[in-house]
């Protein structure tokens, strides 16, 4: 911090308020900030699109775009420094921190805080496979991302393993012993194994590891239902449960009391050095430095019935079957084949009918022993030949397993248990290696199948999440509460909507007519990895409820009927896109780029030091730049040669205009001006659209007083925005140009436009943000605006309730008519989010708005891209 203090002193002559550069230079910087800002948003969207799986990209792409975006953000901050004439140290520090994290990721060093020796399962996910091993990283996904039931617990990390081994001099000891031993000498090798295991079992666990374990133990005990919970202590080594299963190589210790965890921990670690496990590693080319053992400690399930499930039965792939093995009591009975079990073979397609079942004669079962450990008990006579799973249990199990398979896009081997209350728990899941018996014939099937299947549509819209899904179509109506959405169906909807988060777990796939790949729904679809294509334009027209289709969201094709070969092909590929290095890298970098944490400029946390991502910085810089521009125009009127003019207007816009070049016919020194004196083409058109359409007066639907009041209280109680800030709006204009910043109530609009005679120079950039009501209403409003703008040829992006619309290179007349539309929109949407109580309102408002704006926008042959609503849609809207 000394360096920074020094810098502060050096730059202290820089007063943040006294401009020492001509206004025109500052304004140029402002425009440059806007341009960079747009470019950064575009790059972010571009990176997001690449995660969908439709694109082929390589590491070079990730490197290039990361460099590009970092560069732009740096220049953005520099522009702000010039504009505000401050050094913005905090902003640069935030930038350097983010940039450094990104560089570390790109260099292959994972940028995350040093992991603790023990962490709760709640904190785990698939990205932490090095910290907690694959098994528990997967459990993290299953528990936290997919939300499937797992037992509470914690993981003792690989860091703890290294600390333990080092503290006891074991890493060095193993290295020297291994170098000295003759691997072919079985007796010597076994003696070495024994020696290492003995040392581990006698080893001292470092104090910081013990206290970390105890802290986690306390948390889990505190949440447990029983006073003295028992734990299952299980291995989760590097490489285990990956392409190498290591199945049965390492030890699990069941039914361990809290005070027995240290001992069980040592036993599990020691099991990595049995002759069998060690040989297994050596055979597969694992180096000793690649050996690290995390250990998971989970509450025991007092299992009534447990077992394993394969999402692809060990039958020919064409059979499309899955298989469950189950027995009474604890899992090892089935998994280790210690006792007879039941076998159920099911259809992979919902409703997962039972194709066959074989009941074993189950004489004994494994149970938890009261004194710790496990014991065998006799199964009561009437249960010995009874199938141990009901149809309902089978159904729940099948749905959970298929959900896990869909997530990993690999067949799964799932271990599970039901307790006596009928709760299902997923104990673990590992990829199941399924390879077609005859790869060549299999390939022959695939192209024949995909080439002979009837294509319903292809190449339409944007892939949000890749994958293949077959199922029955369910077309969601506008006001659908989705309570009847059938498990395993493919959702087809007009728009993307956050409300579909409700069916993410049930749906096999999603198709929408309209929508963006960057919205809330898209994020969720990626999280759950539901194959999803948005913006197809045609899905609801082509498909109807009950149609059987296959969605190939990799090639972006929708086929008629079920094309099983496609999903088999997908699931047996050598690498899953989501598991590829490039995908994971891009995803990790996007975490440093994309999420927006600084949402509300009025909140305490809207500070440079709180910027955690490039998006935050971009948002912050933009806000500060606008503030500065308003400040300059109001407080330093003498400083620039243009006298800001207050616009006299029937509509209370509170607008101050700075004319930089022939934008008005008012006298240069005049302090106010009339609408008639405006010469600026874009501004004139915008105001016309606003006043002549009569949109301002519109109160489309009675306002509900609750949200109206909350809008007032929020505005005026906010510490940073006093009432004097409200209605302080600014426009900079010339005869062809307008840059408008408009805050009306809680809506914030930016309009930047150039309209001249040269077609190629013409553009409109429109940005709309904010609102009073809940997210769902705001996003309905966003969809309304998007729909209207798309109708007028704008390229529209919706990010939550932020809407960005762009239009370029159209004739002057067309540009003018579109500015009128935007003027109308600004008026119309003032309170619109409050009235957006249901989805069908969107359509009603679109129709209403189009009707009113029509008169104003008639330009020769200029017919908007779509004349919404088309008759068919109008029916469905007004129904």
């Amino acid at each position, binding site marked *: 911090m000394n360096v920074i203090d020094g810098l502060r002193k050096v730059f202290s002559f820089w007063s943040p308020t006294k401009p020492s550069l001509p206004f025109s230079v500052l304004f140029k910087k402002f425009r440059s900030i806007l341009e960079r800002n747009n470019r950064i948003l575009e790059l972010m969207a571009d990176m997001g699109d*690449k995660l969908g799986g*439709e*694109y*082929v*990209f*390589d*590491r*070079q*792409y990730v490197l*290039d775009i990361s460099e590009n975006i970092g560069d732009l953000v740096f220049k953005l901050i520099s522009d702000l420094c010039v504009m505000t004439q401050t050094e913005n140290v905090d902003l640069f520090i935030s930038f350097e921190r983010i940039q450094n994290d990104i560089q570390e990721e790109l260099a292959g060093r994972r940028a995350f805080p040093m992991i603790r020796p023990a962490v709760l399962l709640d904190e785990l996910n698939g990205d932490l496979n090095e910290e907690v091993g694959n098994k528990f990283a997967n459990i993290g996904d299953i528990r936290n991302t997919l939300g499937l039931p797992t037992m509470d617990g914690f993981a003792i990390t690989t860091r703890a393993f290294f600390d333990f081994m080092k503290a006891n001099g074991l890493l060095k000891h193993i290295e020297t012993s291994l170098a000295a031993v003759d691997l072919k000498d079985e007796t010597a090798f076994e003696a070495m194994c024994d020696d290492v295991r003995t040392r581990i079992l006698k080893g001292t666990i470092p104090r910081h590891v013990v206290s970390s374990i105890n802290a986690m133990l306390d948390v889990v005990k505190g949440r447990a239902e029983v006073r003295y919970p028992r734990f299952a202590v299980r291995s989760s080594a590097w490489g285990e449960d990956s392409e190498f299963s290591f199945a049965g190589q390492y030890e699990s210790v069941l039914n361990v009391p809290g005070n027995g965890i240290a001992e069980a921990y040592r036993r599990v670690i020691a099991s990595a050095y049995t002759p069998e496990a060690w040989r297994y590693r050596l055979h597969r080319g694992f180096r000793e430095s690649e050996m690290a053992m995390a250990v998971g400690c989970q509450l025991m399930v007092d299992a009534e019935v447990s077992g394993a499930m394969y999402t692809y039965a060990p039958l020919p792939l064409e059979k499309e079957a899955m298989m469950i093995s189950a027995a009474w009591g604890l899992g090892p009975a089935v998994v280790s084949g210690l006792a007879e079990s039941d076998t159920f073979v099911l259809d992979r397609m919902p409703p997962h009918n039972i194709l066959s079942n074989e009941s074993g004669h189950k004489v004994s079962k494994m149970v938890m022993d009261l004194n710790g450990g496990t014991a065998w008990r006799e199964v009561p006579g009437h249960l010995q030949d009874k199938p141990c799973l009901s149809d309902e249990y089978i159904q729940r199990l099948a749905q959970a397993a298929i959900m896990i398979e869909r997530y990993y896009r690999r067949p799964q081997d799932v271990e599970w248990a039901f307790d006596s209350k009928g709760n299902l728990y997923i104990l673990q899941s590992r990829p199941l290696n399924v390879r077609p018996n005859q790869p060549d*014939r299999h*390939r*022959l*099937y*695939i*192209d*024949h*199948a*995909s*080439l*002979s299947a009837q294509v319903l549509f*292809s*190449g339409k819209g944007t892939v949000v999440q890749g994958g293949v899904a077959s199922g029955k179509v369910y077309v969601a109506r506008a006001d659908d509460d989705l309570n009847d959405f059938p498990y395993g169906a493919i959702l087809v909807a007009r728009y993307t909507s956050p409300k579909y988060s409700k069916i993410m777990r049930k749906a096999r796939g999603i198709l929408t007519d309209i929508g963006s790949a960057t919205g809330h729904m898209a994020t969720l679809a990626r999280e759950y990895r539901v194959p999803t294509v948005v913006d197809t334009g045609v899905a609801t027209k082509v498909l109807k409820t009950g149609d059987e289709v296959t969605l*190939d969201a*990799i*090639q*972006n094709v929708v086929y008629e009927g079920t094309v099983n070969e*496609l999903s088999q*092909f997908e699931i047996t*590929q*050598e*690498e899953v*896109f989501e598991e*590829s*290095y*490039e995908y994971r890298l891009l995803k990790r970098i996007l975490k440093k780029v994309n999420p927006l944490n600084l949402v509300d400029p009025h909140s305490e946390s809207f500070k440079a030091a709180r910027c955690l991502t490039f998006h935050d910085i971009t948002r912050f810089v933009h806000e500060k730049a606008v503030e500065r521009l308003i400040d300059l125009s109001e407080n330093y009127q003498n400083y620039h040669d243009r006298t800001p003019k207050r616009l006299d207007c029937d509509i209370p816009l509170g607008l101050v205009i700075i004319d930089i070049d022939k934008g008005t016919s008012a006298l240069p020194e005049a302090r106010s001006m009339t609408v008639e004196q405006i010469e600026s083409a874009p501004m004139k058109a915008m105001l016309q659209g606003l006043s002549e359409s009569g949109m301002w007066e519109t109160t489309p639907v009675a306002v509900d007083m609750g949200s109206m009041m909350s809008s007032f209280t929020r505005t005026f109680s906010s510490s940073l925005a006093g009432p004097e800030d409200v209605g302080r709006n600014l426009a900079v204009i010339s005869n062809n140009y307008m840059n408008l910043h408009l805050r009306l109530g809680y809506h914030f609009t930016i309009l930047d436009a150039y309209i001249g005679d040269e077609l190629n120079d013409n553009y409109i950039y429109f940005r709309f943000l904010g609102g009073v009501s809940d997210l769902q209403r705001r996003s309905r409003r966003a969809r309304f605006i998007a729909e209207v703008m798309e109708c007028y040829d704008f390229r529209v992006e919706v990010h939550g309730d932020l809407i960005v619309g762009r239009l370029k290179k159209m004739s002057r007349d067309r540009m003018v008519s579109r500015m009128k539309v935007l003027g109308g929109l600004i008026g119309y949407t003032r309170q619109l989010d409050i009235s957006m109580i249901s989805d069908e309102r969107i359509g009603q408002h679109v129709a209403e708005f189009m009707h009113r704006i029509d008169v104003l926008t008639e330009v020769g042959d200029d017919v908007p891209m779509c004349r919404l609503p088309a008759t068919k849609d109008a029916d469905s809207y007004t129904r």
Partner: protein
Amino acid sequence: MTSQCAGCQQQKTQILILDDEPIVCKRLRPAFQKAGYEVETFTDSASAMARIEEKKFDIIITDLKMKGVDGMHFLERIKEIAPDTGVIVITGFATSETAGESFRKGAFDFVAKPFKLNDIIDTVRRLEGNRKR
């Protein structure tokens, strides 16, 4: 199903893909297989170079900038051995010069990375259409 397709193995268009980024090969191979092509992929230019001496491919998709033999030389060699092989160049460093040079050397088309799977398949189909004419 199989009886209909008997013999399609012989009629299939043979594609060789060369890109030193394994991810590109991994993604392209299944996509083309699904679209009905016979595909071989290579991540080092030396082996790809050796392969084209042994076997005639209908279509070759190659990166430009790679370690070892670069794509431009590879393109030249293909055209020497089998002038009627269609070549599609894929690259992340698209400049008008490199594009111009690859067209002069006989490339059918130039596709900038990153690209959509559908786009590259369409390009291959256009190329096939051209060859049949």
